[in-house]
């Protein structure tokens, strides 16, 4: 890398949103906005191949070694590339509890933007890849794992060339008037949802706690049943509204158990901007957002809730709200940090009752990682408070996993049990789910 000219890479619209969110989390003592991805592998894991592949990956992607430069107010923050990153690969004793290890990694007290930890065993090794949300979205994380798996599978091949796998997509709209009209679907929706005063689990100033998580695994038979229920409930082929409705109803059950008056719930869902099957770009958040809401009445029946969300989905797609968000987010990149944080403070508790994503098939075309077969895998992002909770789904080898992530103190153990029971019941008995 010596002699390679530093590159200046502007942050994308969503990157800047997440940078402001991370600023807010750091100021509130919640740590960096990071995630941990679990890989459960069978026998044969090769540490040597992982170490070499991670080194090659770092050497070919100079952005991993970049530093953030915010610049003067009114300018766009940038990454400045430098020397290759040192991706730490850290082994732990066989008796280490992977859950406790993951929770300590979610606190974000580690250097850099990517690291590996593993807990080896004769028949089953757990590999944890920790990553910064400033650099990666979930698809980017899986593309990283796939590339490292490919490098590890060919240990004698020459080092890969330098790659500039970045560049956040932004719609090209020239002229202030055109931009103004392009962002209207987003601003209209934004103010519409803001007026509805949605409920959040842990509004400020709630107790700030450590990042915690709990997993819900489903068998292959259960997963097939769940997907069939989702198809049936939404009358066709849309899975997203069904899963979002399930998570909304679970949160509504928590409010009901607290004796709170019924209120609407809201959630922003990420929409991928990368084309399906694309191998680039790996880095930066290549996502837009769509904003959903349900009234207490709509949440009483799961089929009703799912269809209401499907209608909103169709309306927002027709209005191109996802494009409007991208235009707006790109515009907002020039906001000074304090103004952006103010926007985050206003929206995080009023616009998002909880976080949710279903990232679909986990690492779909990769079955072996560093010589070991991949048995299962899932993502666990740390969540900010407010809103304090998040439910994330993915599927590997035909088995669904939900990771429920929360801030200690935002939900009680009994409320976590309630959320898990409600989600499990709704997913498996969708057509009878009325409450």
């Amino acid at each position, binding site marked *: 890398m010596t002699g390679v000219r530093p590159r200046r890479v502007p942050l994308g619209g969503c990157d800047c949103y997440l940078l402001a969110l991370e600023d807010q989390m750091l100021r509130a003592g919640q740590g960096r906005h990071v995630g941990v991805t679990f890989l459960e592998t069978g026998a044969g894991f090769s540490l040597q191949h992982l170490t070499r592949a991670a080194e090659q990956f770092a050497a070919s992607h100079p952005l991993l070694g970049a530093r953030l430069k915010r610049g003067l107010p009114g300018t766009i923050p940038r990454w400045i590339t430098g020397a290759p990153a040192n991706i730490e690969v850290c082994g732990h004793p066989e008796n280490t509890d992977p859950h406790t290890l993951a929770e300590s990694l979610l606190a974000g007290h580690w250097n850099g933007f990517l690291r590996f930890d593993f807990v080896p065993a004769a028949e089953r090794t757990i590999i944890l890849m920790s990553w910064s949300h400033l650099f990666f979205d979930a698809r980017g994380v899986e593309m990283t794992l796939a590339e490292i798996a490919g490098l590890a599978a060919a240990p004698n091949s020459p080092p890969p060339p330098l790659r500039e796998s970045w560049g956040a997509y932004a719609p090209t709209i020239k002229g202030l008037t055109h931009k103004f009209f392009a962002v209207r679907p987003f601003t209209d929706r934004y103010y519409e949802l803001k007026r509805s005063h949605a409920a959040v689990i842990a509004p400020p100033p709630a107790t700030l706690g450590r990042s915690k998580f709990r997993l819900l695994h489903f068998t292959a038979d259960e997963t097939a049943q769940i997907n069939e229920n989702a*198809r049936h409930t939404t009358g066709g*082929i*849309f899975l*997203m509204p069904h899963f979002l409705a399930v998570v909304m109803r679970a949160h509504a059950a928590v409010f009901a158990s607290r004796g709170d008056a019924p209120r609407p719930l809201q959630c922003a869902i990420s929409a991928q901007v990368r084309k*399906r099957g694309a191998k680039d770009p790996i880095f930066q958040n290549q996502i837009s957002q769509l904003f959903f809401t349900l009234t207490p009445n709509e949440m009483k029946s799961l089929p009703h809730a799912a269809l209401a969300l499907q209608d909103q989905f169709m309306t927002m*797609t*027709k209005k191109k709200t996802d494009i409007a968000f991208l235009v707006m987010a790109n515009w907002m990149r020039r906001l000074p940090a304090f103004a952006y944080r103010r926007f985050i403070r206003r929206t995080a508790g009023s616009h998002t009752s909880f976080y949710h994503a279903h990232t679909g098939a986990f690492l779909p075309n990769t079955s072996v990682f560093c010589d070991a077969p991949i048995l299962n895998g899932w993502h666990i992002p740390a969540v900010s408070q407010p809103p304090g909770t998040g439910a994330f789904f993915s599927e590997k080898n035909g088995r669904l996993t939900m990771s429920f992530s929360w801030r200690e103190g935002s939900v009680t153990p009994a409320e976590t049990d309630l959320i898990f029971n409600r989600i499990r019941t709704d997913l498996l008995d969708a057509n009878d789910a009325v409450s």
Partner: protein
Amino acid sequence: MNRPHTPLPSDLEVALATLIGENLFDPAEPVTAHTDLFERGLDSMGIMQLAILLEEKWGAAISPEDFTEEHFKTPAALAAFMRQRAETPQ
């Protein structure tokens, strides 16, 4: 689905494969008339975007009950469905 406003081309399968390939999938792997779109990763957002494309290009508005796996599985299946609706008197 309503009847399309614009006449459908004779090679609708190919036109759909091109439209879908250019707008929804990575161009490195072309979409053909018989590509299984769900195996290639067509998701909820993609189906919705495809429905908008059909409406913009041919005026074919898809009704909620027509969003089925059978109709959207391949460009050829979608073309057959669109032709059937185009021939149905309203």
